[in-house]
């Protein structure tokens, strides 16, 4: 390069040569491929085309904390139709064999019309062997119809857990269009619950077989003897925090009732049992879900699709009294010897707020033990709305816990700001605040929040975010990867907890409102609640933990329209606690349900 000037002719010439050189090279290669070697390539294209055939990977299995299977997989036959070669006149026969209503197949084909007609559509999942035998016999008369072996969710392991497990379904077109580089038509995708949250690790990787096909799409062999094929990789198995025994007891105890149970390991936030009742049948979702099933689920007045455990709004009733108690002790507003006199209620302005009894002189411990309302009307008034609301939020009310399923709501904890917004600055009075003291009024909590609250009470304000995933197992390495809990401490004085915990112990083991579930071997502490409800009989509520000294389980139970907390909710809590703490007791508990399902507990007055 002798010429170092800007844009010299020599430099221009070099660029020209590079451009023209490459163009000529391309032309030569085109001539080589499309003229000289065209016959070879044509032959390959016409007769030896390679087509990837995908195999779906089985989804990861759900285990409980002791590696018992909760949700598994089972092989099943799926009947498919490929529209390019299918004749519509066959539909009535196939519908008759499958037991479907006329027009069903047409509806599915219509719904998927926009896809390539060469891609097979799933018509029925989990078809019986009889149908497959019929197909095999008549295959030659059924062009465009085939079947494949696939795996399907198996829910026959003794637990239902519909709301926490959730379900996976064939990916709908609108989601497919957004995630087309990850999914293909016909792939399953997690839709709700844990199936949705952990979709990325549960789904596994599809296998690919490269097949040689001719121009009429007939398979004529494997491409390169399968050396470029990719093996199916099963999705990662999940080890959940759930205890199968506790979960089974929760489910069985709720057979004909509405409500929810949540049990948590207090020190780690691990969810031991999680039930929303009534449930829906996950098996209905594992197949191609029919519109009748959807209609029934959505029109059922018991709302089985609603996840009551983490989305249901309830008044906590008297179970909320410990919030005011802890707040007042921690703020130094009262001490354990502080007493008030209960004459059957509390006069505030021109309103009289009632207590269920005349308790006489009551200190903090007895106020919890006997569930005295007067004490808490007066205490919340002393505390003030803002302090009360601050402590309610410390215990996790009014905010989402960050649970690892999508279906969660935050609840309502009223504050000055809240009332101003709802009623206007002058539209509400201090009287609104008084009933908050006994967990009534515009306070809404979820059963999950109550369980978290019980865990914090049991474990002196230290816990971890509630979660379902304990570990997962990497399929490739078979290694178990533990998930670390996210610990936190709400920073409340140890002494305050000591007093409140002792009172909760007396509720069950002293002369309190839940002595009907007293069992020395379990050493349960707790608090009953009876939540008023505008739509009928009160809801029965119980929160508690056990054992008293070093709690291993915290529980919240709500039984809708079942009256006093001790009657319906407390015995369920006791059974769930027992099933978890005393391994081997589960069969005895379950058999007691089948013998005497109508044997309700002794009546006790409480609030």
């Amino acid at each position: 390069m002798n010429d170092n000037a800007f844009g010299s002719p020599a430099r221009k010439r070099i660029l020209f040569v590079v451009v023209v050189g490459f163009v000529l090279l391309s032309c030569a290669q085109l001539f080589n491929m499309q003229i000289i070697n065209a016959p070879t390539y044509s032959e390959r294209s016409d007769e030896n085309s390679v087509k990837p055939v995908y195999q779906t990977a089985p989804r990861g299995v759900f285990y409980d904390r002791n590696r018992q299977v909760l949700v598994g997989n089972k092989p099943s036959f799926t009947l498919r139709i490929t529209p390019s070669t299918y004749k519509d006149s066959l539909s009535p026969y196939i519908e008759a064999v499958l037991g479907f209503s006329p027009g069903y197949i047409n509806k599915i084909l219509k719904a998927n019309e926009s896809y390539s007609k060469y891609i097979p559509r799933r018509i029925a999942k989990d078809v019986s062997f009889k149908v497959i035998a019929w197909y095999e016999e008549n295959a030659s008369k059924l062009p465009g119809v085939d079947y494949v072996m696939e795996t399907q969710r198996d829910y026959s392991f003794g637990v239902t857990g519909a709301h926490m497990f959730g379900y996976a379904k064939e990916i709908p077109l609108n989601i497919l269009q957004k995630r087309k580089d990850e999914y293909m038509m016909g792939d399953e995708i997690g839709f709700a619950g844990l199936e949705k949250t952990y979709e990325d690790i549960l789904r596994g990787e599809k296998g690919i077989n490269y097949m040689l096909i001719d121009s009429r799409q007939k398979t004529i062999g494997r491409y390169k003897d399968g050396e470029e094929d990719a093996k199916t990789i099963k999705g990662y198995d999940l080890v959940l925090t759930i205890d199968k025994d506790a979960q089974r007891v929760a489910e069985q105890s709720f057979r004909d009732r509405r409500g929810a149970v949540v049990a948590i390991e207090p020190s780690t936030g691990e969810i031991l049992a999680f039930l929303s009742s009534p449930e829906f049948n996950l098996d209905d979702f594992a197949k191609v879900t029919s519109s009748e099933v959807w209609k029934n689920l959505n029109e059922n007045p018991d709302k089985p699709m609603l996840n009551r455990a983490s989305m249901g709004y309830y008044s906590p009733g008297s179970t909320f009294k410990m919030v005011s108690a802890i707040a007042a002790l921690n703020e130094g507003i009262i001490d354990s010897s502080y007493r008030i006199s209960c004459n059957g209620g509390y006069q505030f302005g021109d309103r009289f707020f009632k207590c269920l009894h005349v308790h006489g002189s009551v200190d903090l411990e007895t106020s919890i033990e006997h569930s005295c309302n007067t004490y808490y009307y007066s205490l919340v008034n002393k505390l003030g709305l803002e302090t009360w609301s601050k402590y309610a939020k410390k215990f996790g009310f009014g905010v989402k816990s960050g649970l690892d399923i999508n279906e969660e709501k935050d609840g309502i904890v009223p504050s000055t700001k809240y009332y101003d917004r709802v009623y206007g600055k002058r539209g509400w009075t201090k009287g609104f605040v008084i009933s908050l003291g006994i967990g009534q009024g515009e306070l809404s909590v979820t059963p999950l929040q109550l369980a978290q609250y019980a865990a914090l009470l049991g474990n002196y304000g230290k816990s971890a975010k509630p979660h379902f995933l304990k570990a997962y197992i990497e399929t490739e390495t078979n290694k178990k990867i533990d998930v670390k809990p996210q610990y936190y401490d709400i920073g409340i004085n140890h002494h305050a907890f000591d007093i409140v915990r002792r009172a909760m112990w007396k509720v069950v083991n002293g002369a309190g409102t839940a002595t009907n579930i007293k069992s020395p071997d379990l050493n349960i502490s707790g608090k009953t609640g009876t939540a008023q409800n505008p739509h009928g009989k009160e809801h029965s509520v119980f929160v508690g933990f056990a054992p008293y000294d070093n709690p291993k389980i915290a529980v919240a139970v709500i039984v809708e329209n079942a009256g006093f907390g001790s009657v319906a909710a407390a015995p369920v809590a006791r059974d769930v606690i027992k099933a978890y703490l005393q391994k081997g007791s589960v069969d005895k508990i379950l058999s007691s349900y089948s013998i005497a399902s109508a044997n309700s507990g002794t009546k006790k007055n409480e609030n």
Partner: protein
Amino acid sequence: MKINYKLQDRFDLGVFLPVVGLIIFGLLAIYSSTVHHPTASGNFAKQLFFLFVSLFGFLVALFLPTQTIKTMAIPFYLVSLFFLLAVLLVGKTVYGAKSWFGIGGFGFQPSEVAKLGTILILSYWLTYKSRDINNIKDLLVALVIGIVPVLLIMLEPDMGTSIVFAIITLVLIFWSGISLFGLFVVLSPGFVVFASLFGGVAFSIALLCVVAALFFFKRDLFNSITIFVINLASGFFFDYVFKILKPHQQKRIETFLDPLADLLGAGYNALQAKVAIGSGGLLGKGFLQGNQTQLRFIPEQWTDFIYCVIGEEFGFIGSISVVILFAILFVRLLNIAGGAKDKFSVLVVVGILTLLFSHFAINIGMNLGITPVIGLPLPFLSYGGSSLMMNMFMIGLVLNIYRNRKMHT
């Protein structure tokens, strides 16, 4: 004929008509490869919409005052860098690379804008007053300008695009009159870093080559030692940077360096592309008749493998036409560069030429199996809004420069 003469005087049909031809080929191929596709069947309509918006950009570029083009160089470049940085933080991942912003149903690729930004600012810097490209300081600044976007795009990671940026920077420096020795100084650290990836032995051999070259150039001892130290340091520096990166970032660089690691995907596509093109023969299988295209042996054929559709359905006649249209365009661009009125305009045209040519060469080379599989769109043909809009804007700039060329040349 007088009217035609006047038109040609103000508007170069030698640039415009080939571009029109290429766009028509592109639309036909996009239609053919997507019309029966389950998720991409709307792409033809979208591309028409993009084309409409592009024409607007083209007209804007055509009538921009030259001074405005100059003044927009620096802000344009800085904004591009900002977007490149932002896309790494909040972009969405498509095919393993974080190079997109999602806006509504459309995506936007900031690297497309950054290409023009880099061309403009390099042209501006290299021709500002009495710049001397053989002055080490001026050269260094030019290199930094070029390398920053390369590094950012490497992190996405988008190998094809960062190669294009590197080529643009090199060609613009080359055109500005860098000496052979200067070229050696620029290229040797890259060579050493590349060698260092293959282990200590390769690294040592590369350093020996550098020493040999330094003897050949017979520069003074101080300069020679400095250059050697820079080479040595860049090898170690890269190693150091690599080690402090997080594992997933390391993995990205490894993928970047070795796109063939995914041999199954890449090898399969390359084979299917050759079969599609070769089986087209002289006249092709006819529009919408290519079985390779219609049966979708190649995924996402409307983007990087669009050339196969033309090869299969329009045969040798069709595919050679596309190459010839590109050749006419490139030769015209080179001539327009020679006749532009100032050095800035010359470099802008050379930069645009380099950009379009490197896309063309890497893409066609991949489709024809003469270069490795590196994903880059084919200008004016591949589906994609950002790329079409920027390409049309740049053609507008070129025609603008042509209109304002020096007279009587």
